[in-house]
């Protein structure tokens, strides 16, 4: 587990699809910087050369309209390029990733509530127990049907653990208000809207211990709505699952 380094620019990226985002961000910001510096130079030059002083008079129409159309056209073109050449493909890529069902994904059900995350893994049997809004209660935060034996071995924890390299599908649900599932190191943000289940897809390329946060104001405890985000080697992940299973205390019955 390497200690993540955070700075004044993008945090470390541990997502396989994150590089695309980072590249786009960096390219756009270089483009912005160039444009801005260009403007500034132009302004400063004008301010010096055309400052009001004795003997200097303004020119009624210094430039024919033909000139400097290129500037606007240039900007327009640049934006179209960014849009068509970079943004659309990247978005399409990510969306496709989301839409296609990856091979052997780990499925995690997430229940957002004021003001914590709850992560729901299928147990040994590999399938989720029946859940429903009517089952939610203080001792049953995942909304599992108590009469459904499939759910007995399900694992409900407050921290998100995923194995490195394996595709993970996160099914986002909210109990109460709109939350937003944000993992900066995965370059991932997705609103969690009550009344609808939204699935997002992610794949880690590196291990480490990070944080999940909430990015949509959800009330008094919004700032405290965080959870551990642990990326482990498949072996450690399996070990963790076994520990969690042990906590359920099913075997000693």
């Amino acid at each position, binding site marked *: 587990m390497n200690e993540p380094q955070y700075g004044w620019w993008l945090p470390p990226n541990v997502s396989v699809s994150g590089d695309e985002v980072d590249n786009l961000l960096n390219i756009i910001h270089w483009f912005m910087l160039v444009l801005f510096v260009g403007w500034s130079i132009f302004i400063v030059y004008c301010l010096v050369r055309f400052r009001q002083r004795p003997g200097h008079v303004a020119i009624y129409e210094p430039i024919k309209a033909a000139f400097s159309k290129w500037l606007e056209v240039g900007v327009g073109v640049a934006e179209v390029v960014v849009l068509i050449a970079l943004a659309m493909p990247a978005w399409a890529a990510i969306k496709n990733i989301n839409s296609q069902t990856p091979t052997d994904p780990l499925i995690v059900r997430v229940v957002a*509530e*004021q*003001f*914590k*995350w709850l*992560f729901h893994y299928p147990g040994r049997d590999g399938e989720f127990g029946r859940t429903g809004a009517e089952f939610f*209660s*203080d*001792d*049953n*935060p*995942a909304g599992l049907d*108590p009469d459904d034996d499939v759910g*007995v071995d399900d694992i*409900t*924890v*407050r*921290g*998100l653990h995923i194995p490195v390299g394996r595709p993970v599908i996160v099914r986002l649900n909210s109990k109460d208000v709109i939350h937003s599932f944000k993992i900066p190191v995965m370059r991932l943000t997705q609103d969690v809207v009550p009344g609808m289940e939204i699935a997002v897809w992610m794949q880690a390329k590196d291990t480490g211990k990070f944080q999940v946060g909430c990015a949509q104001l959800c*009330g*008094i*405890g919004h700032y*405290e709505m*965080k*959870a*551990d985000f642990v990326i482990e080697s498949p072996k450690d992940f399996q070990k963790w699952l076994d520990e*969690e299973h042990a*906590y*359920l*205390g099913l075997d000693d019955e």
Partner: protein
Amino acid sequence: MDKRPILVAACLVVLLPAMGGSEDVKPWDPALGTATITGSVKFEGKKPRMRPIDMAGADEKCAELHGGKRLKPETVVVNDNGTLRNVFVWVKKGVEGWSFPLPEGNALLNQKGCWYLPHVQGMRKGQSLAVRTSDPTAHNVHGYAKVNRPFNRSQPPGAADIMIQMRRDEAGPPMKVKCDIHPWMNAFVAVVDHPYFAVTGPDGSFELANLPPGTYTIEVWHEKYDVMEQTVTIADNESQTLEFTYPKKK
């Protein structure tokens, strides 16, 4: 959000004591308190499984105080002797005639290791509930009072106790207290205007001592299995034993 039921309830509770107040209320004479009601609350059938709570994933500061151990919700705690813990027992009817002196001090609700201690407690009307934090992390105590005034207060580490005075009876059902920041934290506080209440403990028994002779309606309440009641008539220096059994027979 629909606040109307709360309002209606509040109005009723404002009015009812006012009406009831018309009958004369004598100051309580301790010499009369000679009778005792004891009993226990049994639990039958398959006890529901409580899932262990993983605090560490959300807030390490909470888990630290429990070592590696995982707590389970105190919703249903069945003692080894087959009795049910955290049941609130109180005299619902029969002691209206007296006004009892208030005990010194406040009722304490302590937050320790992101856990409410005690889970269920009774207190006297007019007393204050002192909500204390012994935790290195922030809490937000949220009282879902239906009769008293609801409260919702943040409590950063090291903050002073939050005092909430209970001006009205609220025992049927007791008010729920939750921490907004740590959703697994919940507790129940019953407000009664006489000293005859108890909460079943590790042995599932209760005792209501120093009762005057008379006829009483004893009510037991459990957060999951709701209420039951029995009526008992008791004479001077007499002691009677009551048996309650959860879950209720259909």
